[in-house]
Structures are given as C-alpha cells and as structure tokens.
C-alpha cells in the first residue's frame, strides 16, 4: 500500500499562519494512525516539499488559504483544484508558490501523490506572534475532523485515543529529554 502523509504547512511564528501545525498537534493528541502514515509539521518548506511528495500515495495537507470568506472558514480542495487548469483563477494557499510549483515539477517528473486533500482555513492575522486569533483557533476542532474524514476517504485506518495526550506548545517539543536547572543551579522542577 502506498504511503500516506498528513502534512502541516505554515510558520508558527506568524500568528494564524501557524494554523496548520496547530491542527496537526490537535490531531496527534486525539488520534492514532498506523506506522505507514507519516504525520509531520513541515513549516514553510517551499520547493523542499518535493522529497515529501515525490513518491507519496495520498496526502492530507493542512494550511491557511486565501479566500473571500470570513476568518476561520474551512475550505476543502482536491488535487485537481491545486494543479488543474481550473486552478488558474482560484487563489489557494498563501504557500501557493511552494505547493503548486512542487506539484507541477513532480508532474513533469512523472511522480507525485495520486491524491491530495487540502484542508484550508482562512486566516485573520498573519503578523509576528505565537497566538492564533480567536476565530481561527475556534476552527481547529472542525479541521481535525476534516483530517479524520480525509483519511477515512483514503481508506486509511485512524483511531481515537482513549486518553488524549496532554497539550503542549510546539516549542516544548524537546523538553524533558535533558536535565534542566534554573539560574541558581537547582533542578528546574524542584
């Protein structure tokens, strides 16, 4: 069975642009997928997306999208929306240059995913900041359900965790691996 990827795009330092990674973390807290499913926050990789998409079977992308809709609105796009001729007039993701160019380059190479589900949410604020705006944060649960629905449509098993993982901000990713002390040299958690 070809590999499935759940990939988040967006810069976590730029307020609502960090929506994709936030949805990915929420999904990861609540759901379990099999070892053949890669779940990854890719940030804003531009053309460095290619190695991720080159031989993937199916891809769920979570990203902010520009659309004439209120902040927090959710839109679903297919592979045809992203690379087809119809895409010319549709403004998709703000990371459009990276996503679209990568898909077109892979198409020329005869590679790329068989199917794509892009879960897009309209942002409100994309200036520097670590918080999502309220309307966009409120869309996270719906977006997580959209990820689950997309995986089910791809016939990829996804199971709800009996106990959700504790929430943690992204910058705590490495915490707990190494001992830490405070300024005075005492263990930080003493």
């Amino acid at each position, binding site marked *: 069975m070809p590999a499935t990827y759940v990939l988040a795009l967006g810069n976590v330092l730029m307020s609502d*642009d960090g929506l994709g990674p936030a949805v990915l973390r929420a999904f990861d807290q609540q759901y379990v997928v099999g070892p053949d499913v890669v779940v990854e926050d890719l940030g804003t990789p531009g053309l460095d997306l290619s190695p991720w998409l080159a031989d993937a079977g199916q891809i769920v992308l979570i990203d902010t999208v520009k659309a004439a809709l209120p902040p927090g609105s959710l839109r679903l796009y297919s592979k045809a929306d992203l690379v087809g001729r119809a895409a010319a007039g549709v403004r998709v993701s703000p990371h*459009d240059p990276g996503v679209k160019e990568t898909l077109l380059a892979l198409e*020329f190479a005869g590679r790329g995913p068989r199917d794509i589900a892009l879960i897009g949410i309209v942002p409100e604020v994309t200036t520097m900041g670590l918080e999502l705006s309220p309307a966009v944060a409120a869309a996270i649960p719906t977006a997580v359900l959209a990820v689950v629905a997309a995986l089910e449509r791809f016939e990829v098993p996804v199971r709800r965790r009996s106990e959700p993982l504790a929430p943690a901000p992204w910058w705590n990713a*490495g915490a707990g691996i190494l001992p830490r002390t405070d300024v005075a040299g005492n263990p930080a958690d003493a």
Partner: protein
Amino acid sequence: MSTHITVDPVTRIEGHLRIDVEVDNGVVTKAWSSGQMFRGIERILQGRDPRDAWLFTQRFCGVCTTVHAIASVRAVENALHLEIPRNAQYIRNLIVIAHALHDHIVHFYQLSALDWVDVVSALKADPAKTATLAASLSDWPGNSTSQFQAVKDRLAGFVAKGQLGIFTNGYWGHPAMKLAPEVNLLAVSHYLQALDYQRKANQVVAILGGKTPNIQNLAVGGVANAINLDNDATLNMAKLYQVKSLLDEMKAFIEQVYFVDVCAIGAMYADWLKVGAGVTNYLSVPDLPLDEKGVTFEFPGGTIFDGDLTRVTPITTFGDPYFQKNVSESIAHSWYDGDWQRHPYEEDTVPKYSKYDADGKYSWIKAPRFDGHVMQVGPLAQVLVGFAQGHEPTKRWAVKTLATAGKIAGATLTPAVLHSTLGRHAARMIRCCVLSELAGKHWSLLAENIGKGDTTIFNEPVFPKGEQQGFGFHEAPRGTLSHWVVIEDGKIKNYQAVVPSTWNAGPRDAKNQPGPYEASLVGNPVADTERPLEVIRTVHSFDPCIACAIHTLDVDGNEVSRVRAL
C-alpha cells in the same frame, strides 16, 4: 536614453525580493535591492529561556531551519563559555553537511539552472549524441541514450499539450540562452534525477536530527542523541551505517553529475566569468569544529579585501574578537526608526515604513558591514578564503574545476575568474564537493570516538546571575550567519540574527556604499529590457533566501517585471 526595470517579485527564491535597475545602451548602470518583508522576528525571543531559543530561531525560515538552530545554540554556549562534547560536534557537523548538500543541489537544479538551460531547446536534442557527450564527461550510470530519449519524449508530451507546468515562466528562446540542445537535454535529465538526492540528504538529517525539516536533537551544551550501539532506540551501528551509505550516494551524484554539469554549462557561458563580480571583499567564518572548545576547525574562515587572495586575515575560533568587534548593521536606507549603524548587541528593531525611495529608505533589510566595509558572503567567499589559506581539499577541487571547465571552453582559467556571476555557481559546487568528502571524514571521526567508548553528548549549561553576551556563527549554505544574544538572569534580553542574505541583499549604507547584489548588477548586459534574464542570473547566483519572516503573501506566483523609459 536609459530604461528603468523593476523585477518584483524575483521568483524561484525564498521570500519577497524586489530588484530595480537602470539600463543604458544594454548595460546596467545602477541597481537597487529591496527586501519587501519586515523581519523583526528576534523580538519574539525577548524574556525567553535561552535554552529554548534555537526551537524558535529554526522557524525563522522554512528552508534554512537547521542553520538557525545551530547558530543559536552556539551563541548561548559562547555566552556561557560552555564546551561541547566531541560526539555532539561531529553529529552537528554531519547534520550541517547533509543540510548544505541538500540546499546546494536544490539551488542549482531547481532554482537557478533554468536561467541558463532552455528546456524547450532540449526537444531538438539527439539523445544518442547527448549520451556520447555525457560519457565524455563522466561515467555516471544515469546517462544512457534510452534515459535521455525517455526524458525528451516526456518533454515533447508536455509541450504538445501546451502545458509546460513548472517551466511556464521560463525565458525560452531568449537571445542570452546559448547551450546546445544536447546540453539542455542533459541538464533537464539531471534536474529530474536530483530529486532523489535531495531526499537522501533529508534522510540523513532525519536520522541524526530526529525529524526534518525541524530537527529535535539539539540542546545548548550538546545534542540529545543518546548513543548505544546495541540499542534500537538510540543512535546505533545500524543507523550510523545507514547515514554512511546515504552520504556515499550523495558524494557520487555530486562528483559525477553536479560537478560535471557546472563545468560544462559554465564553460559554454564563459562570458559570464567576466560579469557580476561586484563587491570583492569577502567574509567567511570557520566551521565544522574538531574539538570541544571550538578552536580548531575543518574549514578556515577569514576576510579578503579588494579580491587580493595574497592577503587574508584569518578568523580562527568561535570567540574570535576580530569577528565579534567588527560586525555592525546600518539602517540609513532601511525602513527602521533612525539612521544608526550599531553593533548587534546594541541594536533594536523598530519598524518605520515609508514609501519606496531609491535615494532614501527602500528596504526592510538592514545593511551589515565589517569594520565599515561591504562584504560578500556565501560559498564564493568561503572557497576564496579557504583557497587563499591553502585549505587542501578546497584548493584541489577549485583547481580541478578550473581545469575541467577550461578544457571544455578551450581556455586557461585562473582563480581570478571566480569573481563573477558564474564564479558563485562554481564555488557552490566546489564547496559541495569538499563537503561531501568531509562528510566521510566526520562520519569516521564520530564512529572512532564512539568506538573508544566515549558516549558523552551533553554538558549541562548553568546560567549565572547578571548579564552575559554571546555570539554564535555558522558558515551556512548562503554564507556567514551570526546570532547575537544578551542574557540577563537566565533570560534573553536581546537577540539579533545577522543572516547571509542580509549581508548580500542589503541596501546602501550611510556612506551610500551599495550592497553586494546592487554592486554585482552594475555592468551586467541586458539584451531585452522586456525580459531581463541577465539580471535574474546574477541575483540568483547569490542563492537569495530572505524568507526569515512571513510566507503569507498575496502573490500569484508569476514573475512581474515592469519597464519604463526614463
């Protein structure tokens, strides 16, 4: 009559760059480089734990992730005078090398080759002749007639459907496109093959860094890769050998494909060895540390002024005062409040946007200076500084590159030709060849050190009361990167990142000295002002990446160039 051309945005780069040039009689006479995004992201770090800073800085840019992580931990370690275990240095070095190999291959094949390669012309190529040509240059197995035929057929199919997809915005048939159809077909074929080598480099980063693109294994004081050769959950023998085999495959591609392509394409555009020198003051920092203290390095660093390779001032340690004292940034022509020139420890970042004014403020990028001088950074600076100091592998690959390209061009090429637009491409390839050799060496250093029974990976940082200052540098794919941190009572008080593309893409300073992009464009030919391909060639040769801020942009992905007669 002169013509003013605005290219906005420059495509196939990371970030939003605007370039303006004035053209007189087919030659650029004046140029301006303008970063169109505010980057003041350092402010997000104030008040935070210095041990977390690298997790934030690696999100500055989606492409240059690891480089900002490395520079950040080095800055905090420098502030604390903290030594780093050898294993940690070697693991970091391998990540740095793998990232750089990936980055350089992407730049040449995905981002800049289309400035030189006419994809449509490849349709006229004879695949058998292409295979003969390729065989005369390299014994790479991916150069058979049937493979070239398959690529040509594929290309023909796309053109027949009227869909060039990724190549839609190319400058096909431009008078400055000079390659024979066979060379174009060769390059397009290798462009397709390069994709797999990008992925191999990513795998190395993922194995050692835990994840990619955002690595998880760093720590102020070392790395978090537990080492136990017999344990599946740690860095073990199987993973080490997987890394080795991926690095060996990368090396083969770089030496047999990338090296040859740059020599062959370069030789056929020999005129571009005379164009685009611009600023010939060069700055690079030493990198790939070999000891705990950061006083011996694989790559030498230093400064060169006025292109004089006989006189180089070395930069020798992580704490070198020659580097520390001489870096400053000017905001005379940048959209910030004031017109000061300050040392990074003393800087602030207060945006003050006004209209684009070529004689006043016109860019979000600051103008870094070294002892007041404009400096070019990047692989060319690193190769020249290494060459001037007799760094053996750099010298060997540079000599081999000049000899190989010279043979194809039927000319004698000296190191002086490297001060040019094409020289920057050659230097990036030379650096890549040297790095892929050194990857093997640093892999062996790590394996031997572990073999001796040393599994230390981390020295715990301790933050004293009061204020400490530190800087960390890294010779990143685009050149000298430095992070500057002021810590007070264990919290970040000030943080500044002086990034390579700031050195190169920055605007004029208070003395009106143009930045390296601006200087390098002056004297460039422009055959067709409606399609300023030559301007793009020189700008792309620096490998611009100015995304150290936002990506949420309202752009449609199409290159825009506006032309007006003055």
